[in-house]
């Protein structure tokens, strides 16, 4: 009995050692490149620093006060909001419509699904370049198509009112497939007998959509709302390639501003302030989702 316990201990110790060895690289990297910079990133927002000089100057909450009272940053907040709301509403509404169609027993729907999903795996930089070619007001495809119906092309590149719609269109084009596929998974997980029951009750297809499909889809809708918001707030490569935040800052979002303040103007304090605010915003969104999900799990 004694010896059995001893071999048990030895096994346990071997387990401990192996556990440590297996987990160490991943955990160490997460500590070094996620948790450590998280703390330092927030810490830096209380300083004024130019990324190079050895001295960090403590400024307390000045960065926050300046950022939140500056009218330029209000404009950028507005841009961030327009971009996020525009891309999220665009992806969600088009995505739901297409997913509903793809859920019908149609021939070739798998092929359609694959095609719609394709842009999602392509580099945002490449897609940005392709859309610049299409949007080019002088020799682009879109200008030619508009000319066919007698419309002049907007000056997408230089008109502050048209640059944002341009980026939103290109972004929705790239990411729509993700939303379609997740909505489709949600639709396919709705039990068929619910529709059967609704049909027995004499519900038409519209009423089934309203009273069965949409309510059953609400967890997926919330999930997509959150993930789409998170990724659109963090959009960078397409904005960088297509407009660099211009013209006249019309497409500059908080995330793009962070990059500029940090790595173009070397205002590390300001950039860290923006980063901290973004972090809190994204964290709140994620936690909100986790909470609602928990409630849903308790339900069922």
């Amino acid at each position, binding site marked *: 009995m004694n010896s059995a316990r001893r071999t048990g201990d030895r096994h346990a110790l071997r387990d401990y050692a192996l556990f440590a060895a297996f987990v160490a690289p991943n955990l160490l990297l997460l500590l070094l490149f996620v948790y450590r910079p998280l703390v330092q990133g927030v810490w830096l927002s209380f300083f004024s620093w130019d990324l190079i000089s050895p001295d960090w100057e403590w400024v307390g909450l000045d960065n926050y006060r300046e950022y939140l009272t500056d009218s330029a940053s209000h404009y950028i907040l507005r841009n961030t909001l327009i971009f996020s709301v525009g891309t999220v509403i665009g992806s969600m509404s088009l995505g739901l419509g297409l997913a509903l169609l793809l859920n019908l027993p149609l021939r070739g729907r798998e092929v359609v699904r694959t095609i719609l999903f394709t842009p999602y795996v392509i580099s945002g930089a490449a897609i940005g370049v392709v859309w610049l070619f299409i949007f080019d007001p002088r020799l682009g495809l879109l200008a030619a198509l508009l000319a066919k119906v007698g419309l002049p092309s907007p000056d997408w590149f230089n008109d502050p009112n048209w640059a944002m719609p341009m980026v939103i269109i290109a972004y929705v084009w790239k990411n729509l497939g993700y939303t379609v596929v997740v909505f489709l998974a949600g639709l396919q997980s709705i039990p068929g007998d619910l529709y059967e029951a609704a049909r027995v009750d004499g519900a038409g297809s519209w009423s089934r959509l309203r009273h069965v499909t949409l309510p059953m889809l609400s967890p997926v809708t919330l999930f997509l709302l959150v993930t789409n918001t998170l990724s659109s707030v963090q959009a960078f490569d397409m904005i*960088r390639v297509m407009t660099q935040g211009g013209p006249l800052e019309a497409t500059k979002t908080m995330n793009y501003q962070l990059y500029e303040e940090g790595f173009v103007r070397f205002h590390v304090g300001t950039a860290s302030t923006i980063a901290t605010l973004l972090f809190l915003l994204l964290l709140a969104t994620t936690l909100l989702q986790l909470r609602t999900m928990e409630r849903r799990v308790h339900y069922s």
Partner: protein
Amino acid sequence: MSAQAETVAPPRAPAQTDAIVAPMRMSVGALLAYLVLGVAVLIIAVPLVWMVLGSFKTRAEILTVPIRWLPASVGPANYLTAWHDAPFDRFYLNSLLVTTLGGGLKVVNGVLTAYALVFLRFPKKSLVFYAVLGALMVSAQITLIPNYVFVANLGWIDTYAGLIVPSAATAIGTFMFRQHFLTIPREVIEAARMDGVGHVGLLWRVILPMSRPTLVTFSLLAAVWEWNDFLWPLLVTNSLTMRTLPIGLTYLRSTEGATNWGAVMAGTVLVVLPVLVFFLWAQRHIVSGIMSGSVKG
């Protein structure tokens, strides 16, 4: 971004069968559905087709009004220009290294951590799980500047280490593999343990072969993320020969000026083509990974 494995239940439930109930109405409905889906497919496909066509057009053909859809001839001229004006061989080498090494390390880290969390004993190991899970809540923006400063202090600017190491850990991968390992029946593990198989043998000969779908899906997703990654490679490299393809493409565009779209489209095809072929070959696994709902790249 976040960990929502349970939000979307797996597919394979019966689909709606309106067609059988109302064949007449459905045929009109189906026609409409096909029409809308056809338009959607066109809107997605035309820009990509336009890119490929553009990569074969001469400058004159691109400047022609009204537009010409097809190039007069299909030749490699624009590709040669692009390759001459920007070092695409280096871009390819760098992107391949970053994708295979970076993606590979993510897979290894995810598998090992998940194995330890599920099959090995350790005091308070749930703390390790929460530490990994917590990393999912930390968005890349807040870590950007400190990581840049840290990597610069290590002397890793413009090196492969700087490109690869900071993103070699994976929280989402750990989470995905853990979810899958938890579904492997205990009896299988115990039977192998009875036969005297050690943990390494168990992982290599039992667990991994039983995890092929998750392994394939996560490897593909990790590869696509690494290939397309933009901001970090933009910051951490500064010499042209260390750039990856997406950054190299923006360089090509800046050297070609505003009108030489043919060469720029050729460069774009060079960036897009490998991932496109890869995706069409493996799309089933990638789409099913997204459909299982746990991943948002």
